[in-house]
């Protein structure tokens, strides 16, 4: 069983990320993934997180207690959830927006900046998803690539796939 959490603020597509990942796992990878979300009243800018329990069998308890992966896209999200991360857990951050103070395993990517380079900051989450797929290997690339076109508007499919690839290959660069 793998537990993970996306944290950031409203408008970054935190919950959308969870849905894409969960969909990829439960429909194309035939696993079980339960996604829970929590968000404030703000549509943009408020604290927001989605938690994900991934398992090979049916998920009974749907919440995370100790996360294996924390994907933080804001300082606030990092501060709030870093204690929840397991000792050997992995931290994935947007390196422009989060300044970590921890000795845990860290992978950083300037996802917002990459998204802006690609022309739309809204797809920062997809960049992050690509990067996360490469780092965590909880989901297959094929499943993600099948899911993304179903989850975004028609006219943005190519852009999103490109964003995903940029994220996925970021480590190699």
């Amino acid at each position, binding site marked *: 069983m793998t537990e993970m959490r996306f944290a950031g603020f409203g408008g970054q597509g935190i919950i959308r990320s*969870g*849905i894409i990942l*969960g*969909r990829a796992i*439960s*429909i194309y990878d035939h696993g*079980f*993934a*339960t*996604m*829970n*979300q*929590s*968000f*404030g*009243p703000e549509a943009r800018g408020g604290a927001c997180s989605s938690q994900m329990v991934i398992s090979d069998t049916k*998920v*009974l*308890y*749907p*919440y995370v207690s100790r996360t294996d992966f924390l994907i933080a896209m804001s300082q606030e999200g990092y501060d709030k959830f870093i204690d929840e991360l397991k000792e050997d857990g992995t931290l994935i951050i947007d390196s422009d927006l989060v300044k970590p103070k921890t000795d845990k395993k860290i992978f950083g990517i300037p996802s917002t900046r990459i998204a802006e380079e690609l022309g739309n900051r809204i797809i920062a989450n997809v960049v992050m998803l690509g990067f996360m797929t490469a780092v965590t290997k909880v989901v297959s690339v094929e499943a993600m690539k099948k899911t993304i076109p179903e989850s975004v508007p028609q006219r943005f499919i190519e852009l999103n796939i490109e964003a995903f690839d940029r994220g996925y290959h970021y480590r190699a660069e």
Partner: protein
Amino acid sequence: MKANPRDVFTGTYYIDGDVAAAYGALAAGCKFLGGYPITPSTEAAEAFARKAPYVGAQFIQMEDELGSIASVLGASWSGKKSMTITSGPGYSLMMENIGLGAAMEIPFVIINIQRSGPSTGVPTSTGQADIMQSKWGANGDYEVIALAPESPQESFDFAIKAFNLAERYRVPVMFMADECVGHMTEKVVIPDASEIEVEPRRFYQGKKEEYIPYRRDQDLVPPIVKAGDGYHLYITGLTHDERGYPLLDHRSLPKIEKAKVIHKKSTNPYLVDKIRKNKDEIIEMQEDHLEDAEVVIVSYGITSRVAYRAFEQARQEGIKVGMLRLITVWPFPDDRIAELAKKVKGFVVPEINYGQIVFEVDRCSHGKANTILVPHGGASVHKPDDILGAIKKIVKDNKKYEQVIEYTTTLEKTIFKGSLTEKIKK
């Protein structure tokens, strides 16, 4: 009757409980939704609105919740399966007209995605504190059926079940999901229409001239007709007799005489009897390891999934715990609880409120077993450790409690630096 294939969006989805409930309602043949946006139920209304034009259903966003519930009642009398979707504050506004629906014996479904209260509370997070309100919220006496799903898949299934029960018994059926289930996203499999059993409306089959609106069948439920079919209906929210005529003619009688007339003629007793007498058919629950259980966790909705972890841990530690999950919260399984109370040490009732169903459990146990409430104010769910702690407390305390014991949760301890009650009482 099988569902209409046009209404069923067969496939495998990764959707949240709100959307699943909307798909379930559509599959059950719901053709009218009068709604008003309120967090966290909006996703359901939105999903319905997206699909409605494809299946000949109508979505209307009314000006407020009072309007939406009233329009649902009207639509149901026009012969369409109808529902509304709301959450706490909207639910409160609907109360008067839920009473009207019950009094007119209109089949309809209310999807209530519960949030933290009271008042506006925390709109974006969970609660289970409307459970008592669903039964007692409107003035006068009536009975309802309430269902509590625990996952998006159940959200879909129970939405169909809710419509079936509503049509079967001509009562308001409350679909009491909580925000957690509503916003939890999981795999939902929507089967083929041929696998979905749908209860058709109990239309009156006899001669038009002989129709009497509230003449009951064997099971105390009267058949229904559509408005505008020439039955010359007179339907009122006033206390009425079998013909639907209000019992106002006896105004001139002295009070006591009048009361006697009303007592004899009114159909009010059937509003409660048709559920109370048929409750064995309605009640559904899920039982787990009750055979050898010393302690039983009674839960419903999302709490049952949380409690499951405590259940597993307790079993690992060798405590004989059983699970009783209420699928229909109302009517309440009085007899089953009473039966269990005779053989177990106690009940642990975790709820995301400060005690509602726990009092029902306590009542039904007739002092034979102890009852512990694990309260939670909302905005989140229990910590499984608290539930485990309550289980251990029952095992350890070898005495009879004089009332429901409120377990002091870790959250309460951290915030009030101990038990609030004890602190003040000192």
